């Protein structure tokens, strides 16, 4: 374990995984510092979602190391453990609890004890109530708190999901294509929201929308064929000939 592992929040080294012979990740190495907002771009099949699967414990790597917060080996943990360690994840397709109200969605996401009996005997405290109201305000859903999540629009579901992640109070937030299917206005607003969130925690955003990434104005990592192609500012990366050939050029 070198020095980097102990100071970085997330540390991936030489991670490989393959499905039925197809190498989804090929010796990927990647580091996120505390408080960093990082964007990841890359063509389809570059391994972006697989990387998130590895970090969140959904997929086990064939080889390589994944450390969180210095010395916590994520490859030995499952999704629930990792979520409780403080890694939140937003899916590509907005995934909320459709048959619950907006309020209940946030309440379920709240960072409280998550055992069977603690939930069975859980009662809403005034503190929790205030916290939920705060989050609803942040994601601008206060007016719709009693509506079923199923009745929300696509963009509203995206925000609700982000709200749920906030309620989870993660140290690291993984966000997969947060603005897919959003209007320009919504996209811009989402950028603001993410930047605000990144003030208190690390965020990794996977996105195709170059305009959006430009809005974020942060360090960019470009993945291709399961490994890192280039890393740096958006201008640096978008001028890299390899990136142009592999991704932007097409």
């Amino acid at each position: 374990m070198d020095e980097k592992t102990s100071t970085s929040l997330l540390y991936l080294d030489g991670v490989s995984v393959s499905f039925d012979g197809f190498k989804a990740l090929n010796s990927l190495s990647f580091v996120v510092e505390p408080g960093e907002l990082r964007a990841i771009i890359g063509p389809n099949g570059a391994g972006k979602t697989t990387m998130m699967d590895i970090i969140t414990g959904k997929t086990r790597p064939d080889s390589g190391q994944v450390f969180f917060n210095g010395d916590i080996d994520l490859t030995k943990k499952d999704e629930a453990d990792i979520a409780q360690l403080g890694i939140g994840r937003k899916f590509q397709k907005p995934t909320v609890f459709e048959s619950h109200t907006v309020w209940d969605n946030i309440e379920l996401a709240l960072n409280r004890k998550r055992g069977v009996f603690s939930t069975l005997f859980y009662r809403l405290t005034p503190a929790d109530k205030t916290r939920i109201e705060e989050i609803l305000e942040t994601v601008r859903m206060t007016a719709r708190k009693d509506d079923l999540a199923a009745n929300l629009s696509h963009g509203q579901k995206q925000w609700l999901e982000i709200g749920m992640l906030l309620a989870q109070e993660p140290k690291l937030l993984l966000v997969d294509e947060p603005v897919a299917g959003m209007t320009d206005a919504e996209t811009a607003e989402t950028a603001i929201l993410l930047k605000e969130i990144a003030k208190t925690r690390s965020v990794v955003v996977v996105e195709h929308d170059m305009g959006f990434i430009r809005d974020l104005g942060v360090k960019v990592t470009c993945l291709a064929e399961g490994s890192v192609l280039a890393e740096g500012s958006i201008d640096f990366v978008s001028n890299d000939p390899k990136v142009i050939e592999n991704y932007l050029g097409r």
Partner: protein
Amino acid sequence: MRGVKPTEQEELMYRAIQTFLVALCLLVSCLATGLRAQEDIRPLVDALGATSFPQKIEAVKALAASGNPKVADILQNLTDGKLYAPKTGGAVYLEGAADGAYLDALTGAPANEVPGNLAKIRLNNGLRGAIGAALSQLTLLSPDRAARLTASQDLLKDANPDNLALLNSALAQEKDAEVKATMEAARAVILLKTDASAEDKKAAIDMIAARGNRDALTILTAAMDNAPDDLKPAIEKNIASIKTSLAAWDVAQNIWYGLSLGSVLLLAAIGLAITFGVMGIINMAHGEMVMLGAYTTYVVQQTVASVAPGMTDYSLAFAVPAAFLFTGLVGVGIERSVIRWLYGRPLETLLATWGISLILQQAIRTIFGPTNRQVDNPSWMSGAFEVGGLAITYNRMWIIVFSLGVFVALLLLLKRSKFGLQMRAVTQNRRMASSMGIRTPWVDALTFGLGSGIAGMAGVALSQIDNVSPNLGQNYIIDSFMVVVFGGVGNLWGTLVGALTLGIANKFLEPYAGAVLGKILILIFIILFIQRRPRGLFALKGRAVEQ
């Protein structure tokens, strides 16, 4: 309730002795006069009309010993149930062509003055055995090879030392290898029973041991009892070696049984692999489709038998397409009327198809009645043959061939045809397929029809080994689901491997654990296996599956 204890045993003994004496007298008188005139055997023929089986058996033996050329015909008539006698015993008559007309059993001339209380002469197993032995003596020299083969086999079974001379003379002129081998075996068995020289007996033992099958084991085991002491070690050695080789064959036999069971499971499950595996419909009416196929076979067989009786052996050839089309159409009907409203709600298909299965079962019960229907095995699916120590029955063999044939045909259809391509497209991405101009409702209906049609074909095969009753489908539905799930939903190869694995595993467990426990163990195995591989044997990997 202290039941009536019959004294039949004594009575039987008494009768047997009596009959034996009568027969002996007749025999002696026959031989003494040396006459072969047909009238001389008339008392013997009439003795066939006796009221007790031991008497009849004696009469048969006496007839055989008479050497009269008419005897073979008479005994054949007896076997065929054409001979009649008064219920109280007495003269024997031959059934005439017309109703109520009787002929003289011996001459075949119309009989006059027939008694009123004639009844068919009854046979039992003992009598049938005696007739077989008697006929074998008479037909051993027949010009017909098949007759000689049957006769020699009967002699081998009967192994009566009295026939030794006859066998020797038959052996001298026998040319056919198989018949000769059987005769030699029969001779060897008889030799063991006589007081032939030790050397002859030794040769006989080797001769029998060389056959190496279970029959040989039976003969040798029986011979152990009255063999001279110096021969016993040789017999024991041969018994041991036959047992060893049979044990090895047993393994092969179990694999065969397993393949056979597996092919039945495959047939039953393969239609489900389409409707459930590919389309995602929890099709509880699948078993009823199999049942409909079996009933189609019955109807086709009845029709063929009434329209073209000569073709009955080939009625299955008509039944297979008929069952496919009929159940396929029923399937399309079900899909169009019920299932098409339920796509995307797989669990509700369970409910609806369960309802459909109840309706279909009761419909069949109302139309055909609740009892079994008789579906005959064609002659080419009856009987068995032996390959080394393997006993292979024709019906099982054809079912294996048929199920593999269906599997390959289906695979080709899915992988090579346009319909197969459309079907895979629709099941993978309905909206995309539809926007590319595929008529998805049409493809859905045909796919369900295909799955149902295949189930119907399975019904044709199952009608050959199982009951054709309204409950037929219920017996296979659970096993079918187990196979599809074990193999991995949506993977035809999984279904194949799953069916064969479960079949063979079951057959290997059965001799040790018994049929009931064996099946329980298989179910537990499936449960544990699914824990290890939650998506079956041939699970699809990657992210497409997760969504």
